[in-house]
């Protein structure tokens, strides 16, 4: 039997719908780039000479400072970072405590209908929408500066995030154990404590740790608006452009955050 010679020149064209998608994709990307250029042109950007003088005046001292951190502020920075860590711990704890009931009030499957879960879900969306630091500003303005304002800001903001994720976890549980408990004559409370809670607890703990990582980052800047933590000594030095001291403080922040992240993610891996 003569074998048909493969025609290498004949690569079939892509189907019409794929080609349409490709064109659409190119068009979308072009539109996005055009929009970016338009923004750049219309935005209130500083003149090049202004940037140049700024760089000339500050870039070298900044680099010199970053290479030569001032160890004199190490103790101050460590103490402030410890306070930041403590703030994040309490803020996360408050957020977790308040998010725990919210999670069940916003879960479709537990309440039995989407309508009942709607108010809870709406509340959580509302809380999440606010940036943390806006809460911090409001708390500082309302009750004066200090770590307590920062803690409360973090606590409230964490409810939005944790409540949402917790309720997603609750909605994703295996209904089998609950049915088994009901079949054996258990009531709603039995189902809740022996089926729902044991299933969600490890994931709750894991997300709580994850939120702690986020809160630690947040806590280290809350001081910029007077809400306690390491941000306060940092903003003072930024005003006076003490780059060597800023460098030391930033090193402390970065090291602590990396260590906590690493520890926390290794615990999280064991949990889930």
């Amino acid at each position: 039997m003569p074998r048909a010679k493969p025609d290498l020149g004949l690569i079939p064209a892509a189907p019409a719908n794929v080609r349409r998608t490709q064109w659409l994709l190119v068009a979308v990307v072009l539109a996005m780039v055009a929009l970016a250029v338009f923004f750049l042109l219309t935005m209130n950007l500083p003149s090049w000479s202004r940037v140049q003088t700024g760089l000339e005046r500050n870039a070298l001292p900044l680099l010199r400072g970053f290479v030569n951190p001032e160890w004199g502020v190490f103790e101050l920075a460590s103490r402030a970072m410890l306070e930041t860590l403590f703030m994040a711990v309490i803020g996360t704890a408050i957020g977790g405590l308040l998010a725990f009931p919210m999670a069940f009030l916003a879960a479709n499957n537990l309440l039995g209908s989407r309508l009942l879960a709607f108010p809870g879900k709406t509340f959580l969306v509302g809380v999440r929408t606010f940036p943390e630091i806006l809460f911090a500003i409001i708390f500082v303005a309302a009750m004066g500066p200090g770590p307590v304002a920062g803690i409360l800001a973090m606590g409230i903001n964490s409810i939005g995030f944790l409540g949402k994720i917790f309720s997603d976890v609750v909605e994703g549980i295996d209904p089998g154990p609950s049915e088994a408990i009901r079949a054996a004559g258990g009531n709603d409370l039995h189902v809740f404590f022996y089926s729902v809670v044991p299933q969600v607890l490890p994931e709750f703990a894991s997300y709580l740790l994850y939120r702690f990582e986020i809160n630690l980052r947040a806590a280290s800047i809350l001081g910029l608006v007077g809400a306690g933590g390491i941000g306060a000594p940092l903003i003072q030095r930024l005003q006076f452009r003490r780059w060597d001291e800023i460098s030391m403080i930033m090193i402390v922040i970065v090291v602590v955050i990396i260590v906590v992240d690493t520890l926390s993610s290794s615990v999280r891996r064991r949990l889930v």
Partner: protein
Amino acid sequence: MAVPDPVTDSAAPLRPTYAVRLLNWSTWAVIAALFVVSVRQTGFSLDGISRGAVDFVRFFGRLAPDWTALPQIWAPLIETLQIAYLATIFGTLLGLPVIFLASRNTTVNGPVMWVARSILTVLRSIPDLLYAAILAPILAPGPLPGVIALTIFTMAVLAKLASETVESVDPGPLEAIQAVGAGRNRMIVYGVLPQISATLTSYVLYIFEINVRASVVIGLVGAGGIGNLLNRYLSFFDYGGLGALIIVVFFVVLAIDQLSVWARSRLI
């Protein structure tokens, strides 16, 4: 052969070993101790919560919005969104090559991957507001330091998130492409990108949401956007304007979030 019966066989329900249980309990003990120390050290108390709650509600009462401030709000609000948009675009463009350098299955070699990952870790551990606070006095107050700060943040977060996705792609297509003689770049373009494009787009949208929130507040440290105006209202105790600003920001961020969430749910 006898099959172990889960009811009668005492060994069937697995109980964690003593070592594991000890570890679990000591973890809880450490967490509890940390909490107690934290409460002591920050001077936090239940009294503080109730006082804070009362002050918060009372303060919110003063924030009755003064809608005559609206014309002042629009221009900086638009600048805020422009900053978020530009930073997302630039950060994505800069982050794309880094993603593949930081992923085990697409990187050039071990040391390069290690360096890329270390840089990303350090970049990510610095909060975005801090970048803005440092860049604003150096460059010039205004949107430029804001865009650069959020660009760095976008790049670092995107590369981290996406490199996890790249490492979990199906290796089959990559092997097939390599088997016909393609190099690393072709493997990425034809093997990896099609597998991750939906997830990648979803991450970019997610980071855009974060950037919108961040760009609202970076103005507090002089990096452009509506935070500047916020700062002004605060320092002049213009609570009516502040109330209006907060409400406008709330609904704009909410609308963008909901759009983005909807788009992301369509993608994956």
